[in-house]
């Protein structure tokens, strides 16, 4: 092709001899592989330590200590008129029930033949959760015909008793603990052997509401789970249509000019804004300006929508971009309008990417705590489960991560265990969402 003569070949030696330069390059490659393996291994170790720590610390929250005791529902105390009038029965507060329970427990202790110095009904109080009376009262109000009978109850044990059986509370720790004494712990051992105190699965932790500082044994994540659920409804309902519509417009229809460039840069930057900034924005816009109710999942959802939108817009635009232009040409070539080309061909092909981005955005929102601090969804919000949609959106509630944060803040170590348990539940949710994202991506993916 050319007249220029080729230079003499540089490698005159045999191919079987490896020269210094090749050696050096091979060594560099081996080193790089080693770095890579080390990096992956480090990551795996961290992950294992993290998961191990979470499981080790959190599994306890799913177990709870109960006291099984038959309680005589004394009509003389619970319904003095004897008319079984529900209004009269409601007038008896939990204080009226306490002596009954304590007496019942004392009877059970004495009957079981446990050796203990404790012999008064009042001594039994420290074994029982403060919520035990409420537990019985709720049952009685729901079934007034039980009054006068002896009913078997499975009452919550006090958190110290629970902690003692789980190994969290040690004998040497309780010497200065006014909530429990060593004699109670001895009795606990005896009753545990006698089958009066048992450990069981803690359903209330998954379904219940938060409880006050002094009764961690009663606290559950259920109501804040509903709070998270309603927030996610708001986030999904707003950010998916807004985000997808905005991305389609920007990607397919908007002209390329300074203004759209500016919008694009801003969206990318918004994705990197710390979430607490969205929190204070939500506080200013939705609560102080629009006067929406504080601590409501609606406001939380709106705030998280602001936070999720950039993520959804960015991932949607990326997946729209990844649809080959030849498909748009094909549609336009047979006389489809721009919108038909986008909605009939481009959007279905971008769907897996859009759904993945949305679910990841939602998962991010589900785990977000900081913005909730500012709109009042963190704190002691012990509410009953919402009754219906309106109260779900508008009544004060917490969210899963906020509840976990709140528990981790409290002094009682029993709450520490609950916080780890809450994290297990949260992770299960996040993992489920990610698995859904993977399944959707697989299902919608089209072969070319």
């Amino acid at each position: 092709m050319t007249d220029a003569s080729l230079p003499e070949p540089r490698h005159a030696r045999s191919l079987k001899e490896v020269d210094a330069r090749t050696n050096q390059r091979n060594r560099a490659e081996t080193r790089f592989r080693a770095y890579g393996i080390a990096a992956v291994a480090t990551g795996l170790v961290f992950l294992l330590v993290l998961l191990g720590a979470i499981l080790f610390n959190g599994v306890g929250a799913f177990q709870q200590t109960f006291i099984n005791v038959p309680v005589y529902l004394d009509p003389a105390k619970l319904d003095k008129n004897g008319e079984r009038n529900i209004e009269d029965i409601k007038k008896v507060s939990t204080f009226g029930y306490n002596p009954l329970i304590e007496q019942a427990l004392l009877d059970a202790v004495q009957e079981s033949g446990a050796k203990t110095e404790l012999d008064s009904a009042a001594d039994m109080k420290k074994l029982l959760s403060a919520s035990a009376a409420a537990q019985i009262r709720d049952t009685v109000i729901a079934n007034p015909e039980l009054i006068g009978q002896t009913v078997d109850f499975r009452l919550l044990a006090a958190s110290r008793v629970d902690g003692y059986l789980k190994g969290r509370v040690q004998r040497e720790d309780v010497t200065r603990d006014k909530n429990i004494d060593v004699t109670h712990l001895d009795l606990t051992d005896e009753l545990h052997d006698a089958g009066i105190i048992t450990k069981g699965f803690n359903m209330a932790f998954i379904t219940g509401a938060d409880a006050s500082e002094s009764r961690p044994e009663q606290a559950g994540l259920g109501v804040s789970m509903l709070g998270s659920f309603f927030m996610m409804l708001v986030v999904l309902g707003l950010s998916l249509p807004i985000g997808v519509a905005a991305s389609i417009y920007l990607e397919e229809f908007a002209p390329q000019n300074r203004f759209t460039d500016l919008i694009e840069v801003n969206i990318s930057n918004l994705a990197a804004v710390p979430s607490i900034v969205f929190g204070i924005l939500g506080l200013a816009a939705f609560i102080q300006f629009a006067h929406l109710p504080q601590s409501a999942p609606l406001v939380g959802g709106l705030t998280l929508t602001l936070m999720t939108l950039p993520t959804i817009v960015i991932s949607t635009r990326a997946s729209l971009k990844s649809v080959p232009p030849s498909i748009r040409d094909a549609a336009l070539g047979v006389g489809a309008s721009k919108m038909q080309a986008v909605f009939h061909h481009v959007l279905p092909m971008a769907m897996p990417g859009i759904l993945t981005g949305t679910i990841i955005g939602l998962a991010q929102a589900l785990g977000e705590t900081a913005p909730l601090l500012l709109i009042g969804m963190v704190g002691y919000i012990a509410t009953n489960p919402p009754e219906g949609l309106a109260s779900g959106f508008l009544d004060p509630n917490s969210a899963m991560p906020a509840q976990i944060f709140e528990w981790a803040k409290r002094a009682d170590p029993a709450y520490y265990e609950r916080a780890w348990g809450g994290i297990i539940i949260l992770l299960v949710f996040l993992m489920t969402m990610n698995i859904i994202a993977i399944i959707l991506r697989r299902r919608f993916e089209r072969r070319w």
Partner: protein
Amino acid sequence: MYDAPTLERDVTQATTKFSARNVQVWYGDTHAIKDVDVDIEDKTVTAFIGPSGCGKSTFLRCLNRMNDTIDVCRVEGDIRLDGEDIYDKKVDPVQLRAKVGMVFQKPNPFPKSIYDNIAYGPRIHGLARSKAELDEIVENALRRGAIWDEVKDRLDAPGTGLSGGQQQRLCIARAVATQPEVLLMDEPCSALDPIATAQVEELIDELRANFSVIIVTHSMQQAARVSQKTAFFHLGELVEFGETGHIFTNPEDERTESYITGRIG
């Protein structure tokens, strides 16, 4: 151009389908098409040849306003289809593209079934009133595309699962299904092997009976095989336009001669 000696010229006086005058195209500051005048006849295959980047595809895309989708692209001059200015403000490019179908360089079937690929155009244009009618349109289009026998038993299979040559014939069938008057083909065989190319070329020759076909090609042999008229583009200019036989045997311009003899391009 009618002063040129006529070699193998069709004796029937064909009507002009497209007529372009003074067409200029700019991509931003780049002057991509300079002063192109051309008349394209109905029921004829016209080939656009020229070296890469000479503007032949750009000019082709002006004819169904596909360049509208490119923001920086600006078209000036006068392009008329059956005497109507296609760049008139009142012309909806969507309607124009239904009349002027296009087949692209790379086969680009929709990721849908073979049936849906063909039925898409007729559906959005409302060409079929019933399922039976649509079935008929699909069958006719696939027969026109010379692919019916190969796919008639698997109309529900994805169009993307066909071989490259079959995909391209599917795309041609898809373009035919909307009943256009002109078919634009942008290097339709560049991604195909010789056998598939031969099939597509044969098909193009058959399509000439009903459509005006304009084909952009890199292969001079292909232009010589399939076209009746040839236009040679060079650096954005239309250098020479005339009967294919004439261009290939007796070019008037030096540049045309250099190109077809392989000295440039």
